Every structure is written in C-alpha cells, then in structure tokens.
C-alpha cells in the first residue's frame, strides 16, 4: 500500500489563513456568536461571468481548491472529493424562500441549480476541466473526514495519483436563525480568547473552506503524511479513551509517541466534556492544541484542524494562540486530531511528519 501525503493546504476561514506565507502571525480577535470568513479577492481567481452566479460557499471552495493546486504545482488532478455538512445553504434558502413567497410560481433556475450539495465539486471540476471521479460527502461534522478516507483508500491502492480533497460550509441567514432558536448557537457574543471559559450552551458559528492535494507521491511541498482517519457516528463518552488507545494501537503507536493532540473544543458547556475526557485523562501530559476560538464552528471546520496539523508538522512550530497547555517538544513527529459535534460524529485522524 502506498503512503498518502498532504502536498498542499489552502484554508479560507475566520482568520487570514488563505495566505500560506504566514502562519497565524496576526490573529483576528472576534467578539460575536456568528463569525464570517476573511475573504481573499475572489475576482483574482474566478471570471466575472462565473462569479455572478456563485454564492460565498462556492467561491470559497473554488478559490481554496485553486490555491491548493497552485501550491502543489498542478493544473489538474485525477479526482475531486468534497465534504460539506450543509451544502450550498445560501442558494437553498433563496430558492425555498422564492417558492414560498411566490406561491410556488415564478421559479427561476439559478438558485436551484446552485443549491445542491455537490455544486462546489462541480464548479471546481468545471473551472479546471477535471473529468475524473467527483464525489461529495454529506455526513455532518465528519463530512471532511469522509472525503479524506475516500481519497486515502484510492491513493493507497494506486487508483489515482493526485486528488483534490476538501471541505466547505457557508453561513445562511435563515439557517443561522434556526440554529439560534434551538440554542446550537450561543445567545451571547463571546470573545475568541474567552471561548472555553464561556460556560454557556451552544457554539460560535462560522463558515469556511479548506482544500488540499493528497497524493501517493511525496514532493518538496509536502506537509505531512496522513497515517489514518476514522469516524464514529456514535461514541459514548465512557468509550472514548479506549477508542483513542485502540486507534493508536492500530497504527503501532504508544500514547507517549503522540507529540500533539488537536482538540475541537468549541466552548459548548454541554459537549466540551468529551474533549475533557482526553485532555485531563490519557492525554494530559501531551501538548494540547485547540483552534475553534479562531475558526468558529461549522460542519467541516475539522479541515481547519487538518490545516493546523499540517502546518505544525511542516514548520515545526506551535503558535502560542493555539496552545491549551505548555509542554516541551523538540520535534513534532506525530499529531492526533480529535473532533466531535454535539456528542455525535466523532473522528480521529493521525498525521505524521514526512
């Protein structure tokens, strides 16, 4: 079986992460319960005729994929695999609102055409004229990991050589309202630096896109090797430690060999205890890192976690802003990522220095 390498990373998030010449050097301190992305200049990447029909999520996905291709030194790939929890909600909301407002008459095609979950994957394929395998996974907070698993299987078996893999989710006005009503979004504004001390229910919602070129050929732009990714739709809290240990064992790793654990704490008092099980249990002596105070929460935000892990491994530095504790590490060789959302759709991923 071939190894799988991350040959490029591109991340559009609530921080200026789309520019890989910096690594969280300047951090934007948010003070809100819903945060938006720091957008690159989309016009530099998307022709005006195409851009006029694209909502923000599509633009984010298309530009992140172009940045990933650029960094990997490629113009095309063998396959495109996308993960999205909510798909193109802006156009879905637009289409459904028109359906109601116009009493099911006068329906126009644009927002309907652009509203499907696989629009982003389709638009990327159109932009680069990729006629290969194109698949979109919609699995809530494991959508991104599902895309990674698919790509990894194909690359390990040498079915493809370069695959564009990513996750994208955008904020829609109505969706935000609904999630606020059911307390999935915090009712109060929260400062980024105080997210984990908020002691309230809900998360700070956001949006974003992250794409990478995964390949079974290592190159000089390679960030890391993806050793393993596993997802669990349900996972009881009491089974968490054993599951983590089993995951490491399957990868021939001892607990002490994990240099950094990246946790997806989002400040939701009802669900952060899943992370606490690991951070105050078996991984209490490991360097702990978190990121959702910078990125906010959305279904494919674990793509930000991958971006962060890839950079930690390539740059061999951990920005102070993401540290949950202070441990001395000489070399970062192995990074474990754990994420879950509202106690469901858990994922463990293991990245190695390459």
């Amino acid at each position, binding site marked *: 079986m071939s190894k799988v390498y991350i040959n490029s990373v591109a991340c559009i998030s609530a921080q200026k992460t789309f520019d890989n010449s910096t690594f969280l050097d300047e951090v934007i301190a948010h003070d809100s319960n819903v945060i938006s992305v720091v957008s690159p200049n989309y016009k530099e990447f998307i022709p*005006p*005729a195409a*851009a*006029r*029909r694209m909502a923000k999520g599509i633009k984010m996905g298309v530009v992140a994929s172009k940045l990933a291709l650029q960094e990997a030194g490629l113009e095309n790939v063998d396959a495109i695999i996308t993960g999205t929890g909510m798909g193109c909600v802006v156009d879905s909301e637009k289409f459904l609102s028109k359906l109601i407002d*116009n009493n099911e*008459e*006068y*329906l*126009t*095609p*644009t927002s309907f*055409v652009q509203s499907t979950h696989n629009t982003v994957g389709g638009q990327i394929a159109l932009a680069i004229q990729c006629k290969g395998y194109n698949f979109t996974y919609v699995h809530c907070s494991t959508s991104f990991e599902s895309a990674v698993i698919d790509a990894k299987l194909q690359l390990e078996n040498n079915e493809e050589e370069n695959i564009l893999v990513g996750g994208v989710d955008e904020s829609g006005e109505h969706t935000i309202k609904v999630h606020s009503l059911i307390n999935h979004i915090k009712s109060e504004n929260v400062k980024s630096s105080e997210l984990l001390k908020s002691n309230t229910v809900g998360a700070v919602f956001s949006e974003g896109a992250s794409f990478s070129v995964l390949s079974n050929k290592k190159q000089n732009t390679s960030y890391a090797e993806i050793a393993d990714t596993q997802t669990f739709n349900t996972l009881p809290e009491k089974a968490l430690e054993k599951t983590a240990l089993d995951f490491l064992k399957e990868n021939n790793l001892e607990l002490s060999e994990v240099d950094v654990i990246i946790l997806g704490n989002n400040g939701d008092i009802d669900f952060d205890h899943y992370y606490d099980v690991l951070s105050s249990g078996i991984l209490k002596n490991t360097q702990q890192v978190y990121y959702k105070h910078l990125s906010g929460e959305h279904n494919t935000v674990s793509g930000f976690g991958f971006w962060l892990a890839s950079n930690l491994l390539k740059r061999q530095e951990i920005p102070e802003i993401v540290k949950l504790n202070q441990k001395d590490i000489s070399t970062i060789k192995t990074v474990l990522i754990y994420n879950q959302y509202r106690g469901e759709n858990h994922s463990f991923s293991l990245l190695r220095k390459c």
Partner: protein
Amino acid sequence: MDALKEELKNKIIEQLNLEDVTVDEIADNDPLFGEGLGLDSIDALELIVMLDKDYGIKLSDPKEGKKIFESVETMASYISENSSK
C-alpha cells in the same frame, strides 16, 4: 418609455447579479446576448420569469423570445404593448 427602460436595466443588473455593470453602461440598443452584455440561456429563463411575474406577460413561443430579448429597447416596446399589470 424612458422610465421603463431605466427600470428594466436596474432589474437586469439586480436579478442577473451583474456585479460590475451599471445602468449607464447599458445602452438601449445594446444586444443583451452574445456580443453585448453576454447573457446566456439561464439568463433568458430568468428574464422570461421576470416578464411573467412583474409585467404579467407569459411567453410560450421561444422564437418570440429571441426578438423580445434582443435589447432593452425591444423589451420595453414589447412590455408597453402587452403588459397586463
């Protein structure tokens, strides 16, 4: 008639999301499709729905549409002659 042309230009820009185009840049006789504004078949569907919704005109013959949507001038003439609203 001039007010209707102005109204149509605004609606075309807004509904077709022509971000970089202003009303002043659309001349009354500029072709809407092809060389002029560069609209395409999806835009044509949007314009057909606009005629129906905003002016009460239902287009059933596609050949008719080709003439009507030639320019803002032709659209305005057709609407002023056929509008039921």
